[in-house]
């Protein structure tokens, strides 16, 4: 059962507003975001319900939901919300909060993919698609997924075998070092 108390009921919506600038209390629960959502037909929760979780301070449900993690960031919802809420951005903020607060997302492999992607930028300065695919498959324990596509892709020389590296890699490393990843900085006030 959902228990509400006056002291905490606005906590989550306030935090989301601080981080994204979007006031989810404005959501009128019309469901337009859900009706056009790219991934909602395959999800248990729909975007408008995530907004409701935020309104009612249902933190764990909001932060760990598959919907939040599967969102494709297509911004269709954002384009149509009658209240002007940037729902896609709110989804991103929820993902960051999820990690910062030590929750385990339901779609862990999506997070793993994101990390691999970012690590690759850190290492090479650019993204190297073949490596990304292989590594992701290893991490997801599905080493042979998409393997059927590979020969043709390689034949067309669409994907390089070796990564492109940028010259000023030092600069990139510096960015990663100085600009600490968000969830370490979340506790620091003032940065949006």
């Amino acid at each position, binding site marked *: 059962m959902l228990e509400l108390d006056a002291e905490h009921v606005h906590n989550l919506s306030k935090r989301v507003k601080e*981080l994204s600038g979007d006031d989810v209390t404005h959501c009128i629960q019309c469901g337009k975001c859900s009706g056009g959502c*790219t*991934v909602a*037909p*395959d999800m248990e929760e729909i975007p408008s319900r995530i907004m409701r979780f935020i309104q009612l301070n249902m933190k764990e449900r909001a932060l760990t939901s598959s919907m939040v993690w*599967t969102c*494709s*960031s*297509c*911004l*269709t919802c954002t*384009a149509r919300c009658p209240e002007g809420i940037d729902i896609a951005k709110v989804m*991103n903020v929820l*993902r*960051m909060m999820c*990690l910062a607060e030590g929750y385990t997302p339901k*779609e862990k*492999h*999506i997070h793993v*993919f*994101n990390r691999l*992607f*970012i690590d690759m*930028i850190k290492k090479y*300065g*650019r*993204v*190297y*698609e073949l490596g*990304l*695919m292989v590594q*992701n498959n290893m991490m*997801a324990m599905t080493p042979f*997924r*998409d393997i059927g*596509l590979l020969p*043709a*892709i390689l034949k*067309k*020389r*669409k*994907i390089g075998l070796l990564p*492109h590296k*940028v*010259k*000023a890699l030092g*600069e*990139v490393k510096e*960015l*990663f070092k*100085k*600009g*600490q*990843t*968000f*969830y370490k*900085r979340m506790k620091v006030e*003032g*940065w*949006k």
Partner: protein
Amino acid sequence: MEIGYYPGCSLESASREFDISLRAICGMMNITLVEVPDWICCGTSPTHAVSQELSHLLPYKNIQKAEMHGIKELLIPCPSCLYSISHTEAACVTDANVRQRLSEVTGYTYEGGLKIYHLLDFLRDRVTLGGLKAMVKKPLEGLKIASYYGCLTRFFPAAADDMEQPSLLEQIIEALGGQPVEWTCKVDCCGASLSITRPDITKRLLGEILQSATRASADCIAVVCPLCQSNLDIRQKGLTSPSGAPYAIPVIYLTQLIGIALGARSGALGMEKLMIDAMPLLRAKGLL
């Protein structure tokens, strides 16, 4: 005309033909592309999901590199890169907090003033539709084209007329002599970002898009996004229409279509890199 150019990771690897064909048509139109020297990845959606700071820093670094190279106008063909970079550019101009923090970390202050173009804006505002039309040597006559914007392009001035029913791509296709078809999925998301993590969803989305293009009797799909192209092209194999017929709709970059209309050789446009061969179609229409 000279214009700054940020290719981004996709155009450098899996979508090389986008880069090749863009360079080819720019050459034909007397446009010099000045590549941002030693550009880095813009970070795109994964960074937006992990770190707001990083999601600004990577684009910012590229803005810095462009500015230091004297670039005042920047063409970013990949809508995903464009979204990241113009998002940060706008944040620097409107949000003093962001600006201050970014200049603190990088030691460089961006003062604003960089003009960023989507491919479609660039064609409309700098090349102009009239200008493009005048250069056409081989009109794409009889070619029925489904113009696919994808999900992000509608957020740029390119779709300013109507986010939900944009028409610029169709106008360009008409200028090339092609025949845009009315179809339903032009701003729908293709799910490229989920193609590795949730291929089941991507498959559903691709099915809807391909079915819609087929229903509209399109010969091919014109795209302006490397992620849409790879997704629709590479993963089309194995997908079938509700009646069970396998799909084989060529997914062609707008830049390639322009190249053909301007009379470029197909080899110069990277046509051979498309997974679904577009040559038979183009030959059948007498365009090669």
